[in-house]
């Protein structure tokens, strides 16, 4: 699984890094940053939770 954030859409709601801190991080403004696009299998449910709770729909998941 790969996970990406559209930084044009992200406005810093912060739902992703609060709910799934093992996949999503935050920059100084509180916008989402993803250190590693490739999601290990044991963190896939976390990644999906981040995607499902982003009000901006800024997170995209690509299942492989």
């Amino acid at each position, binding site marked *: 699984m790969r996970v990406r954030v559209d930084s044009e859409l992200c406005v810093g709601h*912060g739902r992703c*890094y609060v709910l799934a801190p093992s996949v999503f991080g935050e920059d100084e403004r509180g916008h989402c940053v993803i250190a590693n696009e490739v999601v290990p299998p044991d963190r896939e449910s976390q990644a999906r939770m981040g995607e499902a*709770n982003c009000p*901006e729909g800024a997170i995209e998941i690509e299942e492989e």
Partner: protein
Amino acid sequence: MAANNPDPKTGEVNLFSPEFAACPQPVFRRLHEQCPVTRAAFTGSPVISRYDDVMWALRHPEIFSSEMEMAVALGTERPMIPQQIDPPAQTAFRKILDPRFSRRRMSEIEPAIRAHANALIDEFIDKGECEFDHEFAIPLPCTAFLSLMGLPREELDLFLELKDGIIRPRVTSDDPDEPTRLRAATGQRIYGYFERMIDERTRAPRDDMIGYLLEAEIEGKKLSRSDILDICFLLLLGGLDTVTSTLGCNIAFLAANPEHRRRIVEKPELIPAAIEELLRWETPVMGVPRVVKQDVSIRGVEIKAGEIAMLLLGAADTDAAAFPNADAVSFDRERNRHIAFGAGPHRCLGSHLARMELTAAMEEWHRRIPDYAIKPGETPRVSPGIREVQYLPIVWEARRESMP
């Protein structure tokens, strides 16, 4: 009657009725189904209620602008920054302000919020009852504001008075202009207070919010004195009634729905999810106004430049097209893209602060007062607009605690 809202013939929706404020969800449902873009009774303002439409409007500030003449309404002389200005100027201010409101920074003031929540509960827990709004929900967010600004707790009463002077001026006559005059007078006191703070920090720099704003730069230029005042005004007004209202809506819901309350008491780790779901269901800031900058057609309804549109966040958050089982309150909802804090560039600056306050308050309250109900024979009273539960009598079985 709530069943006649929106009006079955004209589709006009009454946004000011007390029944609507107390229980807006059935009205939202009828708006979605019958007239998703309609007009408000009395004002004729366009009212938008579907999730996708509200989202689209929030993301197009060039069409649905936040730049409006709210000055008279709120006692200000200029727009509040960054709420009442649009990108790109708004973006520059958000770049400065966002880091001061990040989740990490907010966790620094969390201990002060928990301590104040417990101090408030100490005052009434042995009585077995309280009026939740005035004894808990109103004072608590003031502590957050004072901590955020680096002001001493002794200023609490002053700020409660200033906030009330803007939101609920004490009218003493029938003169329709009196509220505006009172708000303007309070506005001047607020400007004066922050002017003195700026003067003090200009003489002796301090590491607090105003100290930070005095040092901040946009494209190599320091903020003007009026910029700083316009930010401070927003910080004072923005974070008080909104969190107060959310606390009241939450406790009113949980008092009336013991099965939901028992779940979070038995499993306190559910509290953050419960807060999100109640933000969705109650959406205390039920709508945000926008000035229409160019003619636009939504779902075949023509909206004209110059009109003031109401984007119903609460309706968006209960839209069945966006939320499966939208009418069911479920703390297990896995997909929750609610927009109780708005969306797009104007996403609430204080959302991380609000979430921290709500979590601390709900955890402390339910740890100490797990079982409570609305006082028998009483009916909570909810204000229109921002849904503050202005009268919320709560009772519980008083008992001596072994430890606080």
